[in-house]
C-alpha cells in the first residue's frame, strides 16, 4: 500500500483527509461526548441530507447544500433549546427525519435519472478532491483555533455551564459556537464516512479516550490519535479486503471502543475485588 500511496494522488488525498478528519472528530467528539450531545450531532448530520438533495436539484455542489442545512438545523436546535418551549430531544428527532425526507423529495423532483447518493450516505474517502481538502483544512484550522484559544472557557462550560452562565463567561456564545463547529465537522465527515456513519467516527475516538484518560488535554489529544488509528486502519483494511472504506473505518472504531470498554471493565472489577 505504501508504494501505491506514493504513486496515486487519490491515496495521498485520502491520507491527508483522514488526518484532518481525525483532528476535527477528536476535538468536537470530545466536547459532544462530555456534554452528552450525541443525539443532537446525529440530528445535525442527518438534517444535512436535505441540503445534498437541494444541491443536486438546483445544480450547486451538494456539500455546500449539506453545509447550509446542517448549519440551519444546528442554529435552530440551539434557539429552540434556549427558548425552552419544547423538549430539544423532540426537535432533534424531528429535524433528523425532516432532513432525510427533504433530501428524498428534492431528489425525486429532479428530471431524468436520480443521481447515486451512496457517497454522501456512506462516504468515499478515496474520492476526496484537492478542493475538498482545502475546505477540510480551513474547517480544521478554524475549529482547532476556536477550541484551543478558548480552552479555559470550554473547560468551565463543560464542567458546569450553570455556574459559568451566572459568572457571565459567554455560555450562550459557546453553545452556538459549538453547534456551528459541529455542523462544519459533520460536513467534513460526510466526505469520509457519510451522513449515516458520521456519528460513530465522531464519538468512538472520544469515547475510547474517555475510558482511558483522566486529564482533559490528554483526553483531547488521545481522541485525535485514536481517530487517526481508526481511520487509517479502516482505509488499510478496506484496501486489503477490497471493501467500502467508510464502513470499514466505522467497524474498526466500534470494535476498538468495545474492546477497550470490556478491558477497562474487567480491570475495574479486579480492582474493586482486591479492595474488598
Amino acid at each position, binding site marked *: 500500500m505504501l508504494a501505491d500511496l506514493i504513486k496515486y494522488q487519490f491515496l495521498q488525498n485520502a491520507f491527508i483527509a483522514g488526518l484532518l478528519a481525525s483532528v476535527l472528530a477528536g476535538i468536537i467528539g470530545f466536547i459532544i461526548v462530555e456534554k452528552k450531545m450525541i443525539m443532537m450531532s446525529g440530528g445535525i448530520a442527518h438534517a444535512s441530507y436535505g441540503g445534498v438533495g437541494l444541491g443536486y436539484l438546483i445544480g450547486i455542489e451538494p456539500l455546500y447544500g449539506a453545509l447550509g442545512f446542517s448549519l440551519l438545523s444546528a442554529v435552530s436546535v440551539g434557539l429552540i433549546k434556549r427558548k425552552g418551549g419544547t423538549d430539544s430531544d423532540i426537535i432533534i428527532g424531528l429535524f433528523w427525519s425532516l432532513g432525510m425526507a427533504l433530501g428524498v423529495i428534492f431528489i425525486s423532483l429532479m428530471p431524468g435519472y436520480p443521481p447515486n447518493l451512496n457517497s454522501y450516505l456512506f462516504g468515499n474517502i478515496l474520492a476526496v478532491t484537492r478542493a475538498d481538502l482545502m475546505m477540510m483544512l480551513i474547517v480544521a484550522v478554524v475549529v482547532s483555533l476556536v477550541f484551543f484559544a478558548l480552552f*479555559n472557557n470550554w473547560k468551565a462550560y463543560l464542567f458546569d455551564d450553570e455556574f459559568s452562565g*451566572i459568572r*457571565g*463567561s459567554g455560555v450562550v456564545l459557546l453553545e452556538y459556537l459549538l453547534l456551528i463547529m459541529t455542523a462544519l465537522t459533520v460536513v467534513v465527515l460526510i466526505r469520509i464516512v457519510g451522513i449515516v456513519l458520521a456519528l460513530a467516527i465522531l464519538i468512538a475516538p472520544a469515547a475510547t479516550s474517555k475510558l482511558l484518560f483522566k486529564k482533559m488535554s490528554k*483526553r483531547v489529544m488521545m481522541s485525535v490519535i485514536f481517530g487517526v488509528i481508526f481511520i487509517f486502519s479502516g482505509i488499510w483494511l478496506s484496501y486489503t479486503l477490497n471493501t467500502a472504506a467508510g464502513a470499514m473505518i466505522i467497524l474498526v472504531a466500534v470494535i476498538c471502543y468495545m474492546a477497550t470498554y470490556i478491558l477497562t471493565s474487567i480491570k475495574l472489577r479486579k480492582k474493586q475485588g482486591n479492595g474488598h
Partner: protein
Amino acid sequence: MNALEIKDLDVYYGQLQAIEKVNLIVRERDFLAIMGPNGGGKSTLLKAILGLVPIENGEIKILGGNNKKNRHLIGYVPQFSSVDKNFPITVIEVVLLGALNKGLSFFHKFTEEQRGKARELLEKVGLDKLANRSISQLSGGEFQKMLIARALMTEPKLLILDEPTASVDAKASQDIYNLLGALNKKITIIMVTHNVMAISSYVKGLACLNVGLVYHGDPEISEEVVNSLFGCPVELVAHGVPHRVLKEHEGDNNVSGLN
C-alpha cells in the same frame, strides 16, 4: 443595605405555579436556610434569584440592584448531583475556574496570584493536600468543599448553596457547617435544604417554602409550622436534632429528608 430583597414574586413552569407571592428580605451577614418539601419551589426560588428562570411577576434585588445585573456578586454552590463528577479536571483547576473573566477569554492563562489564591482557599476548606487530585477521587464532602472554594474564588458578597449537605455523611456535614459558620462572619449566606436535620446552630434565619412562603423568622420553629409546611404530622424534637415523620402524608409516601 439588604443582601437580597424579593417582592411579590410569582414563577410559573408552564401552567404550574412554582412560586406564589413570595416576599423575602435577607440582611447583610445573615445566614438564611430555605426549607420545604420536594416540589415546594426551593430550587426554583434559587434559580429565580440567580436569573436562570423567567419570573412572571415581582422583583428581585441583590445588594440594591437588579438580580441579573448584580448576579456576579453571588458565589453559587450548585447541588452535588448537578455537576459531572467524572469530568477530567483536577481540584485546583475547578477552583481556578471561579477566577475566569466575564465574557470569552482568548488564550487565557491564570496568573500566579490567582493560583496562590486558589491554593489559599483550598487550605481554608481543608483540601490543600488534594489540590492536584482528579475530582473523580473526591468524597461527597470533599466535592462540596471544592465547590465552595470555587464560589469563594469569585469574591462573592452573597453565597448561595443548593443542598450543600445532600449525599454527605454526618461528619462531613458538620465540617461544611463549621466552614459556612466561619465564612458567615464576612459573607451573607442563603442555603436551600429539604432536610430538617440540616438546620445547624449557625443558621440565623429560616424561611419555609411550599409554593408560598409559609414562615420566615427565627430558626427555632414550632411543630405547627413544620406540620403545615410538610402537610403531615412531623415530630419536632429540638434544634439540630433529627425529626421524624409520624404519619405519612396522604398520597405522598416520599417526604424525603425526614426520617
